[in-house]
Structures are given as structure tokens and as C-alpha cells.
């Protein structure tokens, strides 16, 4: 029997909201293990978020409406994006809302406002974070587009569900274009979600911060929303990668059994992605901020090679 797509949609968003913090928790656990430590519980991020919701907000005197509006916007964007990417089913009522390019643009409006919020208080750190974030973003964008381009050549579309459908039909990882695009995508993900070696999400050194520097002033529920949103962003990039490179297991339509299977498959994939991510993060030191050009430059190169190899070999 088929479930109504709307129900799948709602279910999927619910999964996003619930699993995203768990995914972050999982990454934290792995990190601890890889460093030879015993780890906090998988649910720690959830506890932090819930705790933050109950705390008061201490707002800087000169904070304008932008500062207060940003957390809600960032949160809203992540939720909607979660409704667009095919996670539990490829036919979703929202999937036509945006193709990959528009999706990236949605993320960048969230970033735009976060950067503004960072500058709103008028501390040096906020501006510093904003400047670094926008710099990295503007270098990541072209690489991202090339990766999208390469994938869309294979998928004959930029609409995610369509790409997922096409790719899931062929056994595609054999395709060099996709392999290169995947490499590029991994590097971009590291940059976009602020992981080592680009940014250190767990740093205590204010002068080296990028994303953290912009949210130093947030507290209480605002902070909760922003942290939740950034967990979701990490989750979303993961499922974005899944949808465009490993779409197997995502059902074509809301068939009940298939959806039921899709969830554990998703979790399994996420677990794997977590391991890869943490391996990179543990093995590398954070690079100098101006090394980012070479880092993302190589991402761009990979994507371009992917595209060329499509024209040449396929």
C-alpha cells in the first residue's frame, strides 16, 4: 500500500529534526573513540539543545532585529531544505520546490544572514567570522556548481529526486565522472559545514574561529536554534551526498514497506559517512586560512575533471 506523499514528507522532516542531533552526537562519539577517550552519550546534543531552550536569553544592548531574526530564519531554511532533498522517498510534494542550485542558494541566504548577525553587535570577532565565512563560501560556490554540473550530466537533471532516480538505475559509482564529483563534494562539504581542516567546530581559541565567531553573542533559545540548524546542515549535506551519489535504498514512491526499510538504510549510510568524516577530522590538523584556496581549488579541479571525463569517456 502507498502512503500519501504528504505524510511521507511530514515524516521525513520529523526524521530530519530528530536524527540530525543524533548524527552530530554519533560524530562526537567517534571523535572521542578515535582519540582514545570514552565518549558522551549519543543523545548529548539533544540534551544540550533542550537545556538551551529552557535558558534565558542575554541579548547585547545594541542588537538589532536582524540579530534576533537570524536564528529563526536559519532554522526555517534548514527545515524546508530537509523537505526538498529525497531522504525517505523520491516523490515528495516539496521536491519540486527547488533543484540543487536553488537548494544551495537557500543555504547561502541562511549564511548571508548569519554573517550579518555576526556583524550586528559590532564586535571584532563577529566581523572576523563573517569575513572568513563569506570568503570561504565564495570560493566553495564555483566548485559546488561544477560538482552539480558533473552530476547533472549523468542525472540528466538538476532536480534532486530526478537525479536520484536516474543514478539509482545505473550502477553509477563505476562512472569516473561521478567518482570525481564525489571527491569534490566531500571537500566542499568539509568547507561548507565548517569541519577540520577548514574550521574547528570545537575550538576554544576565538581568534581561529569561523562559524563559532559569528555566534559568540547568541544565547538561550537563539543559540539552540542556531546549533540545531547547523547540526541539520551537516545532516543535510550528508543526505545530499547520499541522494546524488548513493541513492540506492531510497524508494521511488511512498510505498509503506519501502519507506520502512529506507530509514534503517539511511541510518546505516549516515553511520558510514560519520566514520569517513571523523577519520579526516582526526587525521588532519587545521590548515592556515589562506590554504583554503588550494583546498577548494582542488575541489574545483576534481569537479571539472569529472565533467570532462563525462564528455571524454561516457
Amino acid at each position: 500500500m502507498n502512503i500519501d506523499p504528504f505524510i511521507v514528507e511530514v515524516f521525513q522532516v520529523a526524521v530530519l529534526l530528530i536524527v540530525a542531533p543524533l548524527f552530530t552526537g554519533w560524530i562526537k562519539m567517534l571523535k572521542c573513540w578515535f582519540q582514545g577517550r570514552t565518549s558522551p552519550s549519543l543523545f548529548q546534543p539533544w540534551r544540550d539543545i533542550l537545556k538551551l531552550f529552557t535558558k534565558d536569553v542575554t541579548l547585547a544592548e545594541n542588537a538589532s532585529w536582524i540579530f534576533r531574526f537570524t536564528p529563526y530564519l536559519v532554522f526555517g531554511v534548514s527545515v524546508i531544505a530537509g523537505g526538498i532533498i529525497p531522504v525517505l522517498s523520491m516523490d515528495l510534494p516539496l521536491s519540486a520546490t527547488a533543484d540543487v542550485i536553488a537548494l544551495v542558494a537557500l543555504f547561502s541566504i541562511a549564511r548571508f544572514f548569519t554573517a550579518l548577525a555576526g556583524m550586528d553587535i559590532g564586535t571584532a570577532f563577529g566581523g572576523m567570522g563573517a569575513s572568513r565565512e563569506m570568503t570561504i563560501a565564495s570560493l566553495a560556490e564555483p566548485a559546488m556548481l561544477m560538482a552539480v554540473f558533473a552530476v547533472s550530466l549523468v542525472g540528466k537533471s538538476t532536480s534532486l529526486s530526478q537525479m536520484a532516480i536516474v543514478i539509482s538505475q545505473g550502477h553509477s559509482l563505476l562512472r569516473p565522472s561521478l567518482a570525481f564529483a564525489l571527491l569534490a563534494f566531500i571537500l566542499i562539504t568539509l568547507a561548507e559545514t565548517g569541519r577540520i581542516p577548514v574550521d574547528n567546530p570545537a575550538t576554544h581559541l576565538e581568534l581561529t574561529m569561523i562559524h563559532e565567531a559569528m555566534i559568540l553573542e547568541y544565547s538561550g533559545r537563539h543559540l539552540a536554534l542556531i546549533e540545531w540548524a547547523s547540526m541539520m546542515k551537516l545532516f543535510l549535506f550528508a543526505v545530499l551526498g547520499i541522494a546524488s551519489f548513493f541513492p540506492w535504498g531510497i524508494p521511488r514512491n511512498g510505498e509503506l514497506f519501502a519507506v520502512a526499510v529506507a530509514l534503517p538504510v539511511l541510518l546505516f549510510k549516515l553511520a558510514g559517512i560519520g566514520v569517513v568524516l571523523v577519520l579526516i577530522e582526526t587525521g588532519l590538523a587545521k590548515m592556515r586560512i589562506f590554504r583554503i584556496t588550494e583546498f577548494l581549488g582542488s575541489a574545483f579541479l576534481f569537479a571539472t575533471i569529472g565533467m570532462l571525463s563525462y564528455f571524454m569517456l561516457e
Partner: protein
Amino acid sequence: MLLSPISIISSSFAVLLLVLALTPFLRLNQRLLINVGFFLATIASFFAAVAGFWSLADGMTTQIILPIGLPDLPFHLRIDLLSGYFLAVVGLLAFFVSIYSIGYVKGFLGQRSVTHLLVFYVLFLAGMLLVVLADDALFFLIAWEMMAASSYFLVLYEDERVENRRAAFLYLVVAHVGAIAILLSFGVLAGLTTGFSGFQNYTFDAMRAAHLPPELATLAFLLAFVGFSAKAGVIPLHIWLPEAHPVAPSNVSALMSGVMLKTAIYGIVRIVFDLIHTFPWWWGAMVLVFGLVSAVMGVLYALMQHDLKRLLAYHSVENIGIILIGIGLAMIFTSFNMSLLAALALIAGLYHTLNHAMFKGLLFMGAGSVLHATHERNMEDMGGLIRFMPWTAVFFLIGCISISALPPFNGFVSEWLTYQAFLLSPALPSPLLNLMIPLGAALLALTSALAAACFVKAFGVTFLGHHRGHHGGRIHEAKWSMRLGMLLAALACFGLGIFPTYMIRWMDPLAEKMVGGKIAASASGLGWMWLTPIAAERASYSAPLAFIGILAVVIATYLLLHARPGAIHRAPLWDCGFEKVTSRMQYTATSFAMPLRRIFGFLFSIKEHVRQFPPAPHPAFPDRLHYHLRVRDRFWTWMYQPVIDVSFWLSRRIGRMQQGRIQIYLIYSFVTILVLLIFT
């Protein structure tokens, strides 16, 4: 039929004439002059917009021949889809700006007479309208000159400043170089085919009819492209633009940047798709390349600016580039007879033309309000304005979001369409293009990302944080008419972003006329909410859904979280426990752009050094350090400096020839006659 686009547009001209007629009488009461004059200008431009929209809506072409003009070349006017579209663009922005001007120009009261500001404003407006209406070369050039000259005087309005005079002169020179190129191009188009027999060949109809040999067509196109690029500020002919736009009064800069540049786009489209209409693909490729260069370089130079209006001016270069990208793609697709994709690309380009007019006009109006309030153009002396002028801040922010191509506003739609055109390029039969064009797409992505960075900087440094300047108290919100003007423009940005399918349906006949393809049917395949340029499964974007969805989530979370009674305490900002924070301790524009300046440094000529005053006895104890940074447009040193040097050199040489002795001159003339004799 009495009421028709023609009648409306002519009435609009009548109103403009009325303004000119009234001016002498109202000259003495400046305030009244402003109110009446700009009110009438508002009406006139409203008429123009209506005429434009209407003629585009019912898609008919009307021509009229005025009883004036040269003996056998009376002035031809014509409203067709293309001129209708640009009438709409010009009219719409002029409408907003004229409302804005009512408040803005009052700022000059008591400082200087606004009479000639008004006069030239009206002439400028009329000139732009006539350019898109003209249907023969002569009349076109006359209108073109009228537009150029009046805008020259507008740039020169505050003429006591040296920089203004210099900028105006530079503008004049480049404009005329362009005009000459255009003149020659018409000459080729009309004259060479018919051996300069009679003036009637100079009507556009004649040119359409004429069949040029390809090399002549190419020559005509290149000339026209140079000419119009000079006006549009395509790199490397952009040099005048960042000089002239900042110094003009802001309402004028809004018009110049918003629509005057677009007349050049009109010219290119008109000549390429309408008058020549068959061409090889490399024309398109060339336009595409120039577009890309302008886009990337434009935004990078913009990033380096901390003069708010200069920054916006450089962004005009960038956006003209983006428009040309669309048009270039359209040309490529057309030359391969892929009318559908051509239509998509052309619509992307023209759509961006309209969008850019809206948000750039909005941004210049916002900059004007800031200037009006702070008497300051340097962002390093601003900051925290959102507290003094909340409305302007909101409108300016909307402008920033639109120009940074972020959903759900209009800038994104047209850039998204351009991306789609790019992504469909693999369908092209030429493998070379297949490999090259995607890189263009990447450059476009780079451009829009950099634009976002640039406007985070612009808005953040100008409106957020603490005020850096000294006149914190005296800053006031803009007058109501200025706010109204900006509000309308902001609404336009929003509407164009949310309802693209209607826009496209409405532009479709134009695209069909130009390149013979239509996409409206496919574009709204899923219904008006989803924009699906080619096919739903190819790509889709629904601004309304995204907007409403996000809005819904935002509101829902807000309400949910505020179920618990508010627990928000205001406290001093977190200063690491160091109590004495000053406004120097926030990021400056120069600092914000530093990483990108360093990464893309090779594109600029940068002079940066720190001096120690006086050279201290020991490095441990410097007395005073001074930092100096100068970033310059490389094109100035590459292209223009040499030209200037050469011209000076020549003039010196020629000067040496003038001895002032009659015999010498006689010899000169004798030699000349000899030479002529030999050649004939």
C-alpha cells in the same frame, strides 16, 4: 482607436514638455518647482511604463513618421515588443525614482539652484524613452546624444568639486567614442549595402530588409558592440562608470545605473536579433566572454571599494556582465537554431535587465538616503545606521538580498534561469563549447557568491554595529516620498522574485519574435507556482513555496518559543571582560575584504605599506605607525594611461610643427596638394 500605446507614450512626452514649459515660471519658487516638476515627471514615466506594458501585452507593432527631420528622412518612431519591453523597464524605474526625487532633491534646497537639475532630468528621461522608440539611425543617434549630453550635465551638477568635473569629462569622452562607433556601424549597415544612395536606407526597416555579406555584418556588429559596450560599461570600457555614477546626484545615479546602461543592452539586442538576425556562433561566444569578464572583474573591484556609491557602480559592471552572459548564450543557441534554449537564455538576460533596473535603482536610492542623512559616502565612517534609519535599512537590505541573487527575491530568478541555460549547453553540437561553457557557469557562481560577500560587507559596515562617524545624533530617517520610492522598488523586487511565471508568460512573445522560440508553456508546466524552464523533471524552482514554507516555519517556531513568557535580558555586549570598547574595535570594510583581496590580489595593482614615524631608536618602541592602502583598477594602467600618454606625445609633436612662419605653412599645403595629385 483613441487610446493606444502610441497615444499614451505621446501624452507622456507632452507631460515632459509641459514640465520644461513650466520651469521658467516656477524657477523662483524652488520648492514648488521640485514638487510640480518631479510630480509631472512621475506621471510621465508612469504613462511610459503603461505604454510599454500594454504594447508588450497585445504584441502589435505600430509605426509613426513625424513630419520633422531631414528632407527625405523624417523621424521614424515605432513601438514593437522590444521597445515596449524597454519602455516598461525605463518607465517603471523612472516612476519610482521620480517619486523618490521629490524628497531627495529638496536636500539641495538652499545649497544650489535645482532648476537645471530638473530640466536635464526631464531631457534625460525623454532621451532614454526616445532611444528605445527611434526607428531610424539618425533619430536614434539624436536621441542617444540627447541622453548622453543631459546625463553629462547631471553628472556635472555639483560642479565645484574637481573629481566631478574630471569624472564628467571622462564620461563625455568615452560616451562619444561609443557614439562614433555606433554611427559607423549604422553607416555600414545602411550605407555600404546601398552605396550611400539616399537617406531612406537609414531607416531600421531598410536595414532589416538589407542582406549584408557576412564580413560587412561582422564589421557592423563589432562596431555596434564596441559602441554599446562603451555605454554599458563592459570591461574594459567600464572605466568612466565608477567615476561618473558616484558623483552624480543619487536619483540620477539610480537612473543612469538602473536604466541608461540598459539602453545599450537594447541597442545590442535590437541590432543583433532584429536588424542583422543571422550570424555565426562566435559572435555569441565573444559576447559571452566579455560578459563573464565584466561580471567577475566587476564584482571583484566592487569588493575593494569602501565608497558606497562606487561599490554600487562597480556592481553595475558586474550585472551588465550577467545580462550579456544571457544574451551571449541566446546568440550561441540561435546560431545553432536551438530556438527553445535561445528563448530561455534571452529571457534570462532580459529578465535580469529588468531585475537589475529594480534592485540597482533601489540600492542607489538607499545610498542616496544614507548620503542625504550622513553627508558621507565612505563606509568606514558609517555603521549602526539601522538604528537611525530603520526603514531605509530594510529597503537597502532587500536590495542587497536581491542583487546577491538569493531567493526568494528577483535577482535569483534571472541568475537561476541563466544557470539553467548554461546547464543545457551540453546539447550544443560543438564539443569545444561543451567543454568551455560550463566553466562560464562556474564563473557566474563565483560572481554571485562574491556579490553576496560584498553586500554582507556593504550592509554590515554601513548599517550594523556601532556608528564610526562623529555625527551620530544628527542622522535622521529619509523623507516619506523617498521611502515611498524605495518601498515601491522593493515591492517590485519581491514581486518579480515571487511571480516569475507571470513575467515569463508576458515576455514570451518578445522571445518568440526575437529568436523564434517560446517557453511560457513549459515554464509554468506545473502551474504558476513552479518555474520549470524546460521541463518539470529537468529543473524546477518555486519561489512562493520556499518563501511561504520558510515563513511558516519561522512563525511557528517563534510562537512556540514565545509560549513561555519572554525571558530576554539586555546586557552589554560580550567584550571579553575588557570594559572600554570603542567603535574602532569592529571590522572595517577594508578588513572585511582583506582575505579576498589577498586571494585575488594578482588582479589588482595594490600598494600597501606600514610606515613607522619617526624611525624609532629601537624596534621595541615605535612612536607612530601609519597604514596606507591603494587598490587600483589595472585596466587604467594597462589601457588608458598609454592612450593618454600617446595623445599628449602627439599633441606635443603637432605643436612643434606649428612654427608660426607663413612659408612653412605654404610648404605644408604644397606638399599636401602634391600628395593628393599623386593619389588621384
